[in-house]
């Protein structure tokens, strides 16, 4: 599904050269759900940005379903790659209503002069929102800016999966939420990913999430993959074992350690 060949990224400014990502190879099969965990500056976000097309790689190629995407513009990739970021505010258009946001997400390709919201689409949206269990179906016409952070992120999850993408990128999408909403979003994510069989990359700071979600795990540090787990081996790993693995690679990061309490 997704293949990265020798992908690296170096940021060059007048002052310095920063190697954010060293040459990475990654092979993701259809239906794989990969969690990525790592210390700050490990290159997790850079990796996701490269795949999404926010900036081009310094070296290497990125293939999606066999097609070379390396030179394709971000908005074009967005038609096939879904993305949810940390800020619950970034995934929705604030002055537009819940229904209007969903309408925006229900079309990924060519947009024409057809009416974006009709009676039938509203009914569909009502049903889909009801399945979230947050009461959002009562607030179809409310501007999204009036929703809470958790509600907005839940809506973003729904929007990202409305038209099932070939690849779903999740960039610490629960990190800005309180524990209750965070776990709600994780459950929601799991449900959608599971039901739709979406190939997913999830970056997280939370070791427990990293273990419980998905069938593969990768640990990153200083722009490289330092350890990979898959299948049963991954499922049976405990959080303290993960911490030890990090320590083996001389990674000491308070944030990572604190997260395991959550």
């Amino acid at each position, binding site marked *: 599904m997704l293949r990265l060949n020798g992908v690296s990224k170096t940021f060059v400014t007048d002052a310095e050269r920063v190697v954010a990502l060293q040459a990475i190879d990654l092979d993701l099969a259809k239906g794989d759900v990969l969690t990525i965990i790592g210390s700050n500056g490990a290159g997790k976000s850079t990796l996701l940005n490269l795949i999404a097309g926010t900036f081009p790689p310094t070296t290497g190629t990125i293939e999606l379903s066999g097609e070379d995407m390396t030179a394709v513009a*971000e*908005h074009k990739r*967005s038609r096939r790659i879904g993305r949810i970021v940390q800020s619950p505010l970034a995934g929705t258009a604030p002055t*537009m209503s819940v229904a209007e946001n969903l309408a*925006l*997400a229900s079309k990924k390709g060519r947009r024409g002069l057809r009416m974006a919201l009709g009676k039938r689409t509203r009914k569909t949206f009502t049903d889909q929102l009801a399945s979230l269990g947050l009461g959002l179906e009562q607030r179809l016409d409310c501007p999204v800016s009036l929703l809470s952070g958790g509600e907005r992120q839940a809506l973003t999850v729904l929007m990202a999966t409305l038209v099932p993408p070939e690849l779903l990128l999740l960039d610490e999408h629960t990190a800005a939420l309180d524990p209750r909403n965070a776990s709600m979003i994780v459950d929601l994510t799991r449900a959608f990913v599971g039901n739709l069989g979406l190939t997913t990359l999830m970056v997280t700071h939370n070791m427990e999430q990293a273990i419980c979600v998905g069938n593969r795990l990768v640990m990153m540090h200083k722009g490289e993959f330092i350890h990979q787990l898959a299948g049963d081996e991954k499922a049976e790993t405990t959080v303290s074992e993960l911490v030890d693995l990090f320590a083996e690679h001389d990674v000491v990061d308070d944030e990572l350690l604190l997260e395991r309490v959550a």
Partner: protein
Amino acid sequence: MATLLVHAVEQGLAFGIAALAVFLTYRVLKFPDLTVDGSFVTGAAIASLLLVRTGIDPFSVLLIAFAAGCVAGVITGLLNTRLGITNLLAGVLTMIMLYSINLRIMGRPNLSLLRVDTATRLIDQVWSPLGSVSVLIFIALLTFGIKFLLDLFLRTEVGFALRATGDSETMITAQGVDTKRMKVLGLALSNGLVALSGALVAQYSGFADIGMGIGMIVTGLAAVIIGGTLIRSSRVGWMTLSVLVGSLIYRIAVTLALRYGHVVGFQASDLKLITAILVVLALVLPRIREQRQRKVSACSG
């Protein structure tokens, strides 16, 4: 007084088309577009040139003016999206360019339409049974027609994408929309409407003058802000209506200032001051009323 009000409404609606255009860029696209001062005159210039030199009918001339305005908008859009020039500067640059271009089109700074069959003159003749409100009805039909088309457009898939571009570029990019293209489209549409307004106003006033666009962005913004303060809604239909209401209030303020300014001891040269004061009053009075009531929305928390 009644005829004065009719005239105020005529002008309020004619300029209202330009106000709708400013609404589109400033409020919807969140792109402050200064091209307006230039493209307004472009519309007037092209319309006047065609009416004086060719036999094209005054209504088609409005459409041609619209097309010319679109071109102006595209220029600003390309300056911004392809050359990376900031929105304000891009608009200013196009506006400056248009000054010379408009002079070239007109061939002189002022083009008189007194001896030419303008739209308003024709309507006056052909719809004479309607008497003194014939021109008003024509302008109202035109302006509201444009308003409804705009409302419809903003409810299409492309319209939604345009609105989202102004609301959150990151979000809409993640939904697969090319924001560069949206900006150019929005600017083209907006300046097309501004030029159409200019073409209409020129025919209404009887002349096109190279200086008639000066301050158009300010008048447009005034209408958008006045309207937006008086009618608060996130529904497209109400928003565009509020813009037209704002434009009407502004024109009525000017008319009242002219008519009654001297009563309060103002001189002819105080026109702009009185207009501003009346606008402030128009903005403040509803606020006083609103503070008494607390509206409960079905959407809060």
